[in-house]
């Protein structure tokens, strides 16, 4: 999969809901001169069999990047090419309707993912079992607890896909501790089964476990990339206040370029300069 020079710009005026009156008003005006770039100059190549982690703070553009890869959002600049079927777990339980039963919701979700009735019916037992829903599957979703709803969402989303390219967006952390452990194992097996995995998170704790490569996004740009451990450490150091320095002796997390010791590649970017601030040389 190749992502080349991708940029996504949002015309901030489009962010507001449009009305007939404002449309006429906008048509008379010229296009917004300074759009907001949610993503800028993104260049990533993911080989088959790789697992890429996209990390970054909230609002860095992680979800937007996944939306572009999933084909939901066309880039304004650049191109994305993907080989193979993409499955996205961008948001679990999305489209669940409280008035429909669990079974009806799962059927609808399966259809939204491109499965026919028979294919969904064949997997629904597995979905129910993993979600630990039991006979509630035939009760309307509004009678579910939020935990049950989350479990069903996760279970339905992960049981029905057999993807070559898997996109995961903050999928962990649903349900109680035991379900979280179960879902962690489920994601692990999906990662092993899929040919290519791309996961977005702001939690760096578990990326080293899954990922073979990591990219740090901030303000729509790739700030750093490289080995997941190094990028994770760099990201943590960068977000700690008061700011601390990066642990690697060779690059200290400040010099643009690739560090031979820790494998971190830093891009010259305004984001990096803010990291190298007073705070001493404590190691995270």
């Amino acid at each position, binding site marked *: 999969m190749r992502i080349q020079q991708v940029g996504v710009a949002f015309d901030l005026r489009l962010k507001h809901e449009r009305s007939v009156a404002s449309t006429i008003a906008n048509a008379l005006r010229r296009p917004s001169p300074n759009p907001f770039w949610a993503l800028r100059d993104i260049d990533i190549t993911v080989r088959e069999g790789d697992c890429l982690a996209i990390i970054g703070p909230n609002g860095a553009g992680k979800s937007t990047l996944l939306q572009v890869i999933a084909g939901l959002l*066309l880039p304004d600049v650049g*191109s994305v*090419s993907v080989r193979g079927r993409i499955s996205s777990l961008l948001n679990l339980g999305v489209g669940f309707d409280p*008035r429909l039963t669990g079974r009806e919701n799962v059927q*609808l979700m399966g259809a939204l993912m491109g499965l026919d009735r028979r294919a969904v019916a064949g997997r629904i037992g597995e979905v129910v079992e993993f979600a630990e829903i039991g006979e509630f599957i035939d009760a309307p979703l509004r009678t579910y607890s939020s935990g049950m709803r989350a479990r069903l969402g996760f279970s339905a989303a992960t049981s029905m896909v057999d993807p070559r390219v898997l996109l995961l967006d903050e999928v962990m952390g649903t349900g109680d501790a035991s379900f979280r452990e179960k879902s962690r194992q489920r994601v692990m097996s999906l990662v092993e089964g899929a040919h290519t995995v791309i996961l977005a998170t702001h939690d760096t704790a578990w990326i080293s476990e899954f990922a073979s490569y990591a990219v740090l996004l901030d303000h729509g740009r790739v700030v750093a990339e490289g080995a997941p451990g190094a990028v994770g450490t760099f990201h943590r150091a960068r977000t700690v206040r008061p700011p601390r320095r990066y642990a690697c002796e060779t690059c200290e997390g400040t010099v643009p370029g690739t560090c031979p010791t820790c494998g971190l590649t830093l891009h010259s970017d305004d984001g990096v300069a803010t990291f190298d601030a007073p705070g001493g040389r404590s190691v995270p």
Partner: protein
Amino acid sequence: MAGTGGITLTAAGSRERREGLFGAAGTVLLELVGWRHLALQLVRAELTRENARLVLGSIWWIADPLLQMLVYTLLVSVIFQRTIVDYPLFVLAALIPWKGLATSISSGGTAVIGNERIVRQLPFPRIVLPAARLLAQFWRLGVALVVLVVLMAILWPARLSPAIAWLPVLGAAQMVMLLPFVIILSAATVFVRDLSHLIGHLMRLAMYLSPVLYGFDQLAGRLPDSLVAIYRLSPLAALLEGYRDVAYRATAPGPDAILLPIGIGLIALPFALAWFRRVEPGFVRAL
């Protein structure tokens, strides 16, 4: 979800330039056929959802024109002292298809914005959304027409004739006519949100302009003949009079009642599909 083959997405807009009107329309149509399972699931979900939400569920779909029939009968025969024989049936025969038309437009028009959360997250062809909404309304119209026939058998048995076999044909013609307009509206409301309010008022106006409360016969003496002739060319008017021929006058509908709506629908469909394909990639961004 984006198919099993490889895909390449490039910067917005550059993807459709090469295909012509029919190429683009055909692509969308094929998507719809390929995703018919989803369309049927959406129809099922919508019908179930409606039944669960209201105590009487779909009953309101039929009760609504029936209550309107009572109001208009009272208004026309008691207050305006007009006499049309069996006016309740006269007006009901047009009110039911009108209800089908109005709900198709309002429900189909919000097909994409009403499913905003799904559209933002999953990359299925959006054309299934308006198509499914229209299909659900087609089902509702069918049920209401069955109720109409039952009512006729009880209250106006003399007007029941084999001509009612034309009802499904008229219903199908109505759906063919509506499909392109519902497709266009569902996409237009994404970019101009409050279009649906405007449509509500336009539909009310259109109802009084259409032969719902009156028929071609009532216009004949009051308007110049040339104007009536033009009026008859309106596919909507022809369609409603067709329903009335079948359910009220116990005769077969004129050919215009079926051919005009189907003709309009088929002519507009490729344009609607091609336009939908052009604006579809912008949905997620605009929602």
